[in-house]
């Protein structure tokens, strides 16, 4: 049986129009939910929060803190977690449908602020009067502050007392680089392994290298200075002499910690976030020594709660309430395992757990990566720094050459 021609025309037209229509509407409708629910600004409505903690599921303390704030404010907070390495890319490609609140790793705040993705606190009305200066300065660009630090963490030098005592080393003797290297040699001679850290070719690698770089009194604006070379030489020699494993080139801080937990290693450079894990295993921690003794400044880690730019400025009022709710009474800092960013918060944490004193001191001594007026430039410098570390430790080039190439690339 033949179908009539006009029926065919109708069918074809219908298919054509339907597909065309779907394609067009698919293109024009905005994918993000922000501002589309009509209840913007006033109480109620849905607010989007992005964080870099995909490992914390809906039953985690962090997710519960968000839920508590949502019900306190009478709104719905939709949480989206994605990998921290993708934050900049995700936020850039999301523009202009940005989330209401975004947690951003502190060295990335200046980059995103300079791109015009974030509202300054002056514009949004966020109050940061109580925040410790050195933590807050990571979020300052050209005299404006963007967001509030959720908390801070930093790096320390963990050690395994069992391995040290078996090798006959007193931790009190480890005060500078020379004594630390001597201790590593002794441990390796005793058949154990020296030190593990993360020298991976990402921001983590720079984060871990900075205490040694700054500990040699080097400056990020001059990567190939005479002061900088001994720090990279130290790491390179450790790897070359087998005092540190070759796997540091690929270790994230997480895998480095896993290595340390085998119980074979004497030392591990790692973050305050592993303190409770260390307590369970009986590991202790000291501040990372500087080249000639004293504590080296470690970089501050941790995210900022920021308020990305919205088309509808009325939404800021509620976003500020969300941020305040999360930072009030250390809710966020405790849930994420950070040292609180305020004096009052730190006192409360200390009361609950006196062993935190060491880390609170370390955070007070710590320095934001974007300090020294680096701001936006830090991202470029850091990329060259971890590339130099990778090149030197892998034997691609000598530490001096690697740093020289890094400085050339960073300054052009």
């Amino acid at each position: 049986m033949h179908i009539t021609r006009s029926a065919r025309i109708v069918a074809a037209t219908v298919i054509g129009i339907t597909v065309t229509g779907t394609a067009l509407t698919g293109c024009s409708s905005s994918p993000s939910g922000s501002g589309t629910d009509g209840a913007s600004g006033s109480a109620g409505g849905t607010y989007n929060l992005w964080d870099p903690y995909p490992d914390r599921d809906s039953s985690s303390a962090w997710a519960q803190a968000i839920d508590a704030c949502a019900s306190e404010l009478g709104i719905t907070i939709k949480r989206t977690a994605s990998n921290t390495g993708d934050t900049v890319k995700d936020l850039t490609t999301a523009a202009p449908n940005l989330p209401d609140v975004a947690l951003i790793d502190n060295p990335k705040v200046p980059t995103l602020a300079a791109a015009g993705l974030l509202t300054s606190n002056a514009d949004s009305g966020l109050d940061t009067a109580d925040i410790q200066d050195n933590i807050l300065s990571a979020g300052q660009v050209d005299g404006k502050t963007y967001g509030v630090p959720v908390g801070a963490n930093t790096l320390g030098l963990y050690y395994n007392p069992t391995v040290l005592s078996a090798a006959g080393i007193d931790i009190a003797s480890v005060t500078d680089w020379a004594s630390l290297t001597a201790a590593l040699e002794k441990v390796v001679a005793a058949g154990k392994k020296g030190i593990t850290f993360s020298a991976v070719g990402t921001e983590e690698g720079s984060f871990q290298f900075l205490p040694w770089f700054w500990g040699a009194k080097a400056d990020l604006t001059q990567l190939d200075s005479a002061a900088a070379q001994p720090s990279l030489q130290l790491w390179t020699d450790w790897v070359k002499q087998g005092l540190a494993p070759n796997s540091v080139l690929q270790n994230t801080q997480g895998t480095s910690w896993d290595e340390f937990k085998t119980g074979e290693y004497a030392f591990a450079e790692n973050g305050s976030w592993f303190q409770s894990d260390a307590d369970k295993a009986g590991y202790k921690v000291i501040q990372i020594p500087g080249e000639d003794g004293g504590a080296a400044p470690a970089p501050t880690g941790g995210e900022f709660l920021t308020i990305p730019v919205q088309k509808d400025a009325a939404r800021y009022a509620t976003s500020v309430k969300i941020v305040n709710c999360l930072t009030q009474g250390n809710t966020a800092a405790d849930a994420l395992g950070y040292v609180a960013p305020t004096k009052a918060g730190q006192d409360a944490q200390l009361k609950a757990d006196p062993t935190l004193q060491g880390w609170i001191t370390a955070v007070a001594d710590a320095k934001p990566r974007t300090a020294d007026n680096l701001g936006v430039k830090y991202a470029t410098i850091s990329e060259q720094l971890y590339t130099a570390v990778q090149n030197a430790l892998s034997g691609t080039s000598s530490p001096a050459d690697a740093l020289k190439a890094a400085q050339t690339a960073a300054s052009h």
Partner: protein
Amino acid sequence: MTTTPLDPRAGAGGGVSSRRRQRLTSQLVAWAFIAPVVLYLVFFYAYPLVRNLDLSFRDYTLASFITGNADWAGLNNYIAVLQDASFAPAILNTAVFTLGSILFQFAIGLALAVFFFRRFPLAGTLRALFLVPWLLPLLVSASIWSWMLNSESGIVNAGIQALGGPQINWLTSPQWALVSVLIANIWIGIPFNLVILYSGLQNISADVYEAASLDGANAWQTFWRITFPLLRPVSAITILLGLVYTLKVFDIIWIMTKGGPGDASTTLAIWSYRLGFGGGTPELSPAAAVGNLLIVIAFVFGLIYIRLQRRVDPS
């Protein structure tokens, strides 16, 4: 059974205007049928391509995404990319990675195809097992390779050291990093070659082999005089498709070495991603320029493929 047209004017026939209208309607029908495909091509092929070209000829920063303004840069991004210290290693690595992968994937795939073509018990099962690398998500295979090749705790080094060999820093030394990702990629690509070449073998007439065996050809002669020449059309297509696939391999390398240490295993695809999203300040326009170079290279091979296919299949 035929139905008469519903339109009485069409039924009358003859008039010039009605014939023209008829042609117009049939053209409209044609366009309506084509519209979905055209729209699909425009939105998912033409637009991204044009956008990427635009990106590479401008100076895009993060702020450009907010303001929508980016200065015209002409060929500056391409010039900067060509003069970059990473350019020569990236081209060389891409060439070594692609040609090395193709050579070994093809040779091993062909050997296995010929092997499995001689029917023997369990051949089907074993052949199916060889498909596993193809079925696994790349993320999984690359992560497992990365663990196996770990300097300190990897099973490969454990094996080598048990036999008295030295510790090889597969993923972290400039000499071995590219070799490591090459090995992983060869392993992943063998099934593809095996499947296509095996189906090619099935198309060779058994008569030819019979004639050869009557003439007293041994296995070696049979392969080089019959199997290999008759497989040539299929081989050419397998190799060219492989080339286009391998040129743009990203995930395996990124997961295993991130292109490092230094530039030791950086290919054009890795370099493009690293410029755009890999950390540091996003350099989106140079990244797009590198991506476009990659597209041009792949395009050339694509043209060769189409050419060859036309010659193989003249219809």
